[in-house]
């Protein structure tokens, strides 16, 4: 692995790509990176700081925690406050604020809330705590959902009856179509999500290119990957080509990962989903199939999923997630909303756009 890492950080390749990009003299090109990990990598490598002003990178809604609606956080807090529950979660969810509270705050008050590195860790936790209900905060896109599906399958096989999911999983195709058809955003090209593409393959992106005349490049997360994708996109725009380049072909195949897709298909079905700041996107969510209803925490605890989403006054996370404004165009950014005192989820999550911008000059 380290040889590949070195190759895609190679100074000669990086310098060459930077020179080619900096030599760009065409019209303004708006490129959206959809994936939160791309947002962070772009920030981490300082890529924005070397781009000419005519190449604009816009961050999209690819951060699974950022697009989770606020009522989900409220529900998670309520479940944590119940007797005999153990809430398990990915780390980023801990600090998401909800009306002055958060899971981190509840943990400090003594609620049993645990960070897991893998959804499969839930199986052991459930087995070690048979008298408690282990509720996993199931958020994520297609990259994460197959492993979550595996945890459900394993729980059923092992007859573990105290493991549940509070689902907020989402899929990319529907929101990609929504963004592509939004004239206000005016995207010329996409940096497509590398790890989501490992699972779903590349067909979606060819469809977007055909339907909306938007070019794109599927990219990994090393500097050569991202710079290469940017260079491909500006070249395609220059040549009026709608081609989609797979620059992450070392792990992304056109058909994706059939086994992972099958696991998602076995456990989940599509449903409408609320994306924070965007609203309801039809068929963009995943819920457990009836076969697995016993693991559905929404049903077991009779929690309503249709509550009014709460967004703090002045918070522009929604516009930022759609690429309609940049973090520093939000009046709260850097003043009332900081990493120490986040108002919205874009500032809390390690993949959030505002959190990433905070690392810039």
């Amino acid at each position: 692995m380290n040889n590949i890492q070195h190759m895609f950080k190679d100074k000669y390749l990086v310098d060459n790509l930077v020179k080619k990009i900096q030599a760009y003299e065409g019209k303004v090109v708006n490129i959206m990176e959809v994936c939160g990990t791309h947002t962070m990598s772009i920030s981490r490598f300082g890529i924005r700081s070397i781009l000419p002003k005519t190449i604009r990178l816009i961050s999209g809604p690819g951060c699974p925690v950022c697009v989770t609606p606020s009522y989900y956080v409220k529900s998670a807090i309520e479940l944590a406050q119940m007797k005999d529950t153990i809430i398990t979660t990915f780390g980023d969810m801990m600090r998401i604020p909800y009306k002055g509270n958060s899971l981190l705050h509840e943990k400090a008050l003594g609620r049993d809330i645990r960070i897991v590195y893998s959804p499969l860790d839930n199986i052991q936790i459930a087995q070690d705590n048979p008298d408690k209900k282990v509720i996993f905060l199931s958020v994520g896109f297609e990259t994460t959902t197959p492993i979550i599906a595996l945890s459900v399958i394993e729980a059923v096989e092992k007859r573990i009856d105290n493991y549940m999911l509070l689902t907020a999983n989402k899929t990319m195709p529907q929101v990609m179509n929504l963004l592509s058809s939004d004239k206000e955003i005016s995207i010329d090209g996409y940096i497509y999500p590398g790890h989501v593409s490992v699972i779903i393959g590349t067909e979606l992106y060819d469809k977007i290119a055909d339907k909306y005349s938007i070019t794109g490049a599927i990219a990994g997360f090393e500097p050569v990957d991202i710079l290469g994708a940017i260079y491909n996109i500006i070249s395609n725009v220059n040549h009026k080509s709608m081609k989609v380049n797979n620059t992450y072909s070392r792990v992304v195949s056109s058909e994706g990962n059939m086994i992972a897709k099958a696991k998602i298909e076995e456990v989940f079905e599509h449903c409408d989903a609320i994306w924070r700041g965007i609203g309801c996107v039809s068929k963009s969510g995943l819920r457990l199939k009836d076969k697995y209803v016993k693991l559905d925490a929404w049903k077991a605890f009779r929690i309503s999923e249709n509550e009014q989403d709460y967004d703090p006054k002045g918070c522009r996370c929604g516009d930022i997630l759609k690429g309609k404004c940049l973090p520093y165009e939000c009046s709260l950014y850097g003043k009332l909303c900081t990493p120490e005192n986040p108002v919205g989820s874009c500032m809390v999550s390690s993949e959030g756009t505002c959190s990433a911008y905070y690392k810039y000059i």
Partner: protein
Amino acid sequence: MSSIITLAHGSGGKLTHNLIKNIFQKHLKNELLLEAGDSAVFGVDKGNLAFTTDSYVISPVFFRGGNIGKLAVCGTVNDLAVCGATPKYLSCGFIIEEGLKISDLEKIVEAMAKTAIESGVSIVTGDTKVVQKGCADKLFINTSGIGYIPSGVKYTTAGIKQGDKVIITGTMGDHGTAILLDREKIDVESSIVSDCATLNKMLNDVTKKFGSAIRIMRDPTRGGVATTLNELVSDNRFSIKLYEESLPIKNEVKGICEILGFDPLYMANEGKALIIVDSSKVDSVLIELREHNVGKEAEVIGEVIKSPVGKVYINTIVGGTRIIDMLVGDQLPRIC
């Protein structure tokens, strides 16, 4: 003797005294400790004293490359050494959760004794308390330390000048990565171990040889190099710029951090020092550091730049620049 620590061992009675005699005094033996007074009394050299304290709550207490006892002695010795002090005397206070195996306690105290001898310090006074199950995570240790600072040595940020160079004495992030693998039981095969080590002999040589060319030293423990450098620039007189290509990081640390979504700049180090040095002396300082086993991978990683706001920047391998900010809390693992 019982095989585990019970509340009775903390009562001050016979069990406590036996524990002190058979574990602490047996291994940490020195004249002052064996006097067993309520305080250790000793003379002082001329010049200034350095005094430091630290508490250790690490979990797990045994980790690849060390244990909580070794860590405690290294941490306190290093805190003294980076101030230019020659460490002399340590205290150690133990808060033990009932149920801890006595054999585990003995291994930890043995490690403290060995580390103390290697670094030339004596643990001269201590205290032991036992708490109920659940009130401490196996064992907490507090160590305080006293060292003597030669006259004329005073390391403060006021001495830092534009153009000074930033050195790190070895690879970054080893300890934090090793602990992460052990604590979270990450199923990855790795030879990474904690870099836990005392630095006083190396740093005392540097202090003696280079005088005021050494502006300040710090050990980048919790929060890593990024946090420590942010602390240095917090009075807003200057900034620090790092060079990403120059950062010495083991390939395994890079690989594990990449998979988990962590940045080695924020991972703890327990056997490394940051040194800010007059640029005219940087090559000589590097030669001196590399003569020592704990400094053989020392590298220049950045420089001090004039700036109206105190920030830490990094020139990335792409040729861009970004800020390295202080984290709000702990780093969190990536989701996807």
